[in-house]
Each structure stands twice: as structure tokens, then as C-alpha cells.
């Protein structure tokens, strides 16, 4: 029985935390928050690329570090904790994972090295409007060479150079690889609840595109990409939740009301204990997802859904109760509570909302039981 990260992985975590404390954190996130003209921090992006993190899980032959997914989970937790304002998840959890999952050798060779170096920002375009997408609801259309349709919202779609797009092809669905810097692509920046990350509406009009993976396999591939991303996002959620708990705990120890530390009041104690319990549940489920992801276990779909459901609920709880613990201060722009509250919602929605994932979890349990 070894259900924990290795000492090497823990060293990586310590290193990552030190690096991000230095190079990221609220001050960097706020640069993006307060400047409507930018939607990610270029300096941090470059620094992260230089650390090799963008290629952590990319094989060495494609310019990556060739580490495992467990190492990527470690990094994800730290990026979540730092509320990092960079298109890391879109590029690494979605775009690169889609390429590694479905790409031809040529596609991998063309794109992965640029991802690893930080040259290519990638994104994943699935949603086409309100509600959880289904295979049947996809309207974007690929004819083997060109793509037409509208994707909204696309996280980091405003700054990405390339997109993996889920599109109809004939009677099926395919994944499609598209260069976003072409005449056939129009982008419209979107205002969102989390301005520390970019979002766009992407419109494709006869945009040149190529298939990623087999024709008609797009929905299954999309689900597989979402499962992988779900585990990695769950680590971001755990990291963010943990940061909220630490922030609230610190405040509760130092803030006085009625001449006592507010952390000595049971209402605050039990609130923070509830956060702790939610995080432990989320963390354990995330670890299981990490194990399944790293070993390509058959349990991955189930584990990913559980990790995502637990992570989304925990982060929402922790983000809102962190504000509440801070009282009036927590509701000011200057105090960082709202950065987490905003990011919590983005992470809960980016790969599909909680109710849809809970339904997936139950379906996967039923499938497992039937097997």
C-alpha cells in the first residue's frame, strides 16, 4: 500500500511552491485582473515554460521532460493554490493531452515541442452555448478540410494559437485541429466571472482544419480528454481550496472580535473544520484519480468523475466560507478572497458543470457494477 506521492514528487511540490510564491501569487494574478487589455501574465507564462512545466508530461522526444502524470498533478495543485493567471490548463490538460491521446506522429511532432517551449498556447473548444453539450448537440461542422460554426465560451480562446475543436463530421463527431490565426477565424473576447483568465467566442467560417484522431471518434475522444483534464483540474481545485482554508485559518487566528481571536468561536472553528473535511475528501478522490491517470487504469472514468465532483464542491465551499470568515474585509476588492471565489466557479465549469459530472459518476458506477 502506497497511496501518497513519492519523496521526489514531494520535492517537486516544494520547489514549485517556492517558485510560484516568488513569481506568481495574488500580485501577479491582480495584474491580469486589473488590466482589461490582457488575459494572462506573459512573464509568468515564460517563467513556467523555462521551468519545463508545460512539457512536464510530454515525452522527451517531443521536447518535454518526460515525467509522469503524477508530477503534473503535483504542479496542478500548486498552480491552483496560486490562482495562476496563465493558460496552463487549456494548453497542457486539454490541448496537449488531446494531442497525446489522439494525434498522429506528425501532429505530435508539429505541436508538442511548441507547447513544451511555451510558443504555442492551446485551447479546447467544446461548448456552443448554455447547457451541458452532448454528442447530439454539437453544431460546429467539419467537412474533412474546413470548419464552420461557433464555439462559446472557449477558455483561453482569446490568446490561444491553436484549438482542438469538437465538431460534427457526417453523422458522427470528430476532433479537429485548427490554427486560430487565420482569416476563417473570428474571436470575440468575453467578460466572465473570472477575469484572471481569458475567454472568447470563436467563430469559424470555412476555416482550414485537420482531423485529430479517427473520424467519428470525436465524442469518445472528447470524453477521454475531459476525464484527464478533470483529474488535473481536481488538483487545481484542491490547491485552491487548501489556500482558502489556510487564508481563513490565518485570519481567524489574528482577527479579534469581542476581544477574542475569532478562531476561538465555535462557529468559525466548525466552519473551518467543515472546509478541512471537504478538502480531505476532495484530496483523497483526487489522489485516486491521479493514480488512475498515471497508470492508465480502467478505473479512470469513475475516478475522474469522483475527483471532479469532490473538487468542485470543496472549492465552492472553501471559497465562499473564506469570504465569510473574513467578514466585511472579505468582500473588498483589495483582499484576495474573491480571486478564489471567481476561480472556483471557473474550475467548476471549465470542463463541464458539477451536476453533469455527478450524473457521469453514477453512470460509471452502474457500468462498473454491470461489468
Amino acid at each position, binding site marked *: 500500500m502506497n497511496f501518497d506521492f513519492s519523496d521526489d514528487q514531494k520535492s517537486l511540490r516544494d520547489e514549485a511552491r517556492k517558485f510560484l510564491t516568488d513569481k506568481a501569487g495574488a500580485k501577479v494574478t491582480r495584474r491580469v485582473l486589473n488590466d482589461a487589455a490582457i488575459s494572462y501574465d506573459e512573464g509568468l507564462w515564460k517563467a513556467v515554460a523555462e521551468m519545463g512545466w508545460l512539457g512536464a508530461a510530454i515525452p522527451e522526444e517531443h521536447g518535454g521532460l518526460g515525467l509522469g502524470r503524477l508530477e503534473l498533478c503535483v504542479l496542478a495543485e500548486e498552480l491552483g493554490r496560486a490562482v495562476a493567471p496563465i493558460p496552463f490548463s487549456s494548453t497542457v490538460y486539454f490541448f496537449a493531452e488531446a494531442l497525446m491521446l489522439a494525434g498522429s506522429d506528425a501532429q505530435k511532432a508539429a505541436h508538442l515541442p511548441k507547447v513544451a517551449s511555451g510558443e504555442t498556447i492551446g485551447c479546447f473548444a467544446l461548448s456552443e452555448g448554455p447547457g451541458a453539450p452532448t454528442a447530439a448537440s454539437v453544431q460546429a461542422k467539419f467537412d474533412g478540410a474546413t470548419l464552420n460554426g461557433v464555439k462559446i465560451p472557449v477558455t483561453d480562446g482569446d490568446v490561444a494559437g491553436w484549438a482542438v475543436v469538437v465538431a460534427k463530421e457526417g453523422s458522427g463527431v470528430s476532433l479537429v485541429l485548427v490554427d486560430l490565426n487565420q482569416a476563417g477565424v473570428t474571436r470575440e473576447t468575453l467578460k466572465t*466571472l473570472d477575469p484572471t483568465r481569458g475567454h472568447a467566442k470563436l467563430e469559424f467560417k470555412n476555416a482550414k482544419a485537420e482531423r485529430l484522431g479517427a473520424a467519428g471518434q470525436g465524442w469518445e475522444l472528447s470524453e477521454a480528454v475531459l476525464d484527464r483534464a478533470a483529474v488535473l483540474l481536481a488538483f487545481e481545485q484542491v490547491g485552491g481550496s487548501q489556500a482558502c482554508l489556510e487564508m481563513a485559518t490565518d485570519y481567524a487566528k489574528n482577527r*479579534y*472580535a469581542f476581544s477574542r481571536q475569532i478562531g476561538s468561536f465555535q462557529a468559525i472553528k466548525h466552519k473551518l473544520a467543515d472546509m478541512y473535511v471537504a478538502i480531505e475528501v476532495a484530496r483523497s478522490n483526487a489522489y485516486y484519480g491521479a493514480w488512475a491517470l498515471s497508470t492508465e487504469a480502467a478505473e479512470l472514468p469513475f475516478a475522474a468523475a469522483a475527483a471532479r465532483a469532490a473538487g468542485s464542491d470543496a472549492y465552492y465551499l472553501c471559497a465562499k466560507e473564506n469570504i465569510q470568515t473574513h467578514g466585511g474585509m472579505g*468582500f473588498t476588492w483589495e483582499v484576495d*478572497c474573491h480571486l478564489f471565489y471567481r476561480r472556483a466557479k471557473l474550475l467548476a465549469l471549465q470542463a463541464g458543470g458539477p451536476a453533469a459530472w455527478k450524473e457521469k459518476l453514477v453512470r460509471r458506477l452502474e457500468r462498473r457494477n454491470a461489468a
Partner: protein
Amino acid sequence: MDFNDTPEEAKFRAEARAFLEKNCSPKGSDKERLSRRLSTEEYVKAAKAYQKKKAEAGFAGITWAKEQGGRGLPPIYAVIFNQEEAKFDAPSQPFAIGLGMCVPTVIAFGDDATKDRYVAKALRGEEIWCQLFSEPGAGSDVAASKTKAVRDGDDWVINGQKVWTTGAHFCDFGIVLVRTNPDVEKHKGLTMFIVDMKAPGVEVRQIHQASGGREFNEVYFTDVRVPDKNRLGEPGMGWNVALVTLMNERLAVGGSTGPDYAEILELARTMPSPTGQGTLVQDEAFRQKLADWIVKAEGYKLSKFRTMTALSRGQTPGPESSIGKVINANHLMDICNTAIESMDHYGIINDGDLMPMEAAFQQGYMWAPGLRIAGGTDEILKNIIAERVLGLPQDVRVDKGVAFKDLPSGR
């Protein structure tokens, strides 16, 4: 049980409606509202003009004594007027705190000269008031106020900072709770003053809220001189004065907070369900939640009817009306969060032009955390219910019998 007005109440309601129809537009869409259409300055001007008309028509100070310019009617009449006014786009908001909390305090504690100077002008809409109690280090624990006033001849000199002051940037006067004696127990060293918000040394800065808005202010006092005649109550009795102000808060607060069950039901009719089958309104998980929201919203609304019944029988509603805020803030957050999550990835968009109901759910999501805190946190309100309604003992107090200056106050 009977939901109808008495004949007198019905007559009053008809008069109120006639007045409102003459002076205000019915509520239209959000975009048409005065508060959106006008600049703050224009809106305050409109509010003053409207208040003047109310005063002339006898709809200002409905429950106030006649000698204060009021009409001397029982509280149910104020409720009736508010019910009717809520159907119109009436610019009454800027006066809510002043006439609801501050001026009643002036009436209760001011001498005749003070009342003569301030009450009528406030009632006629000539001067607007704000309430200056909360401080960065005194939120839930308002009595821990540190802003101090030192006697200097016939004046007092105020230094310090207040926070979360609604409307401070357009107000003329405020009532301010300050510490005049740090050498006695916390609750015994406070004094209340009327302060001229335009006086030298008063600086108002808007607070940038987590939600992005700027409805509240910080107010800094630097050597602000206030004449002793502006004192409300004896020196050291400020806490007792403040309790009267806060008691009035419960009667003043109310109104809609954001989208409710009707709005999310409307949304659910068109939103796909998270399972990919049918619409959200066909999703039983949503329907069970909707039932809970109906029960809470109706329960709260009906509880207000019970309060109104008590008012109409001449009883004073007690701290049990605190349940409203405990229910509403979390109710709003839960509804908005569910609505957003049901939109899936699309729910992250926060743009009134693109989103269902002009992004009301997204705005409610950002506003709800503030609502859980403003005017008493969930935790403080539950303490109030436990102690004042159920009669449970106070928590252990470590600030009894200790001079304020010797109390620990953290960083």
C-alpha cells in the same frame, strides 16, 4: 385569518396608490430604472424632489409623531405605503437609512433645538443622513469602535476611520459612534454625535467591493471639530444610543435581493438538463431543489405577513425578524450558483448582453457573499436568535470589567 385590509387601511392604500401613480412610473425593465439611467448626482436630486412631494402629501414619517411632522399612524400604514411604493420606480433609496435609522435616533435623543434644526429638513428631503458605526476593527463587534473624540472647549475633535458607510459621498449629515473614554469598559466609553459630512477633515473614499461595485464608503476623520450641542445622549452613553438606531434597522431593511425561484424556474424552461435529456425543468434534481426554494421563499414572505399582522395589532416585532436575512442571503447564493452551474461552461460569462436575464444570476453570485455579511453576518444573526429569541446564555465575555484600552484587538 384574512388577507384583506380593514376599511381604513384600504382607504389609505388607495390614497398612496393615487399619489404614486401621479409621481412615479410603474416598475419596468431593469434598464429603465432611474437608478441606472441617472448619474448619482441626478438620482440624489430626483430623490430629494420625490421626498419633498411625499412630505407634502403626508407620506413621509407615516408613523412619526405629529409634532415631528409625522402622521402618527400605526406601523401597518408604513408597511402598506412601502408595499405600494415597491411597485413603482420610486427614488426613495437614498433616504432609507437616514429616515429609517438616523433621524429617529435624533428624535429620541436630541434636545428641542437639535430636533428643530434637523428633523423637518430631513423629512422634507432637504438633507440626507448616513450612519457611521462600523470600523475596520469593529464589524460584528461594533462596540469595539476606536474612532475617538476628545473634548476641546465647546467642541469635540474626532480622529479615526469608519467603513461600509452607505451613501456617505452624497450625505449631508451622519450620526457617528466614537470612543470618548478608553479607560472604562468597552460599552461604557462610547458617545454618539451628529457630524456634518461637509466639515473640514471629513474625507469619503468609495470602497471597491469584491463584486466590482462601489456602493459603500470609507470615511476618514482628521481633526474634525463637532460642537458639543451635536452630542446625542450623555458622554459614555453612546452604546445605548446605538442600540436604538440598530433596533430601527430591523424595521427599515427589506426588499428584493435578486433572482428568486420564479426566475430560476423561467430559466429552467429553456436550459438543457445536465443529464443531456430534456430541459432543466424536467430534471428531478432541479425540481426537488426548486421545491425547497419555494418553501423557503414563501415561508419568508408569509412570515412577513405574520409580522405585519403583529404590527397591525400594535405589537412591536422582535428580533425574530432576523430570520429573513439568514434565509435570504444563502437562498440567493444557492439559486444563483445552481443557475450558473446549470448553464455549464457558458455560465462563466458575465455579460448582460449575452446572458439570460441580463446576467442577474452571475451578478447575484458576486453580490450574495456581501449580503451574508452586510447588516450582521449569518453568525451574528444566529447568535441574536439564540440569545434574544430562545433565551440562551451569552457566550463567555472576556471584555467585561476591563478598560477598553487594555483589551486585546489583534493585528
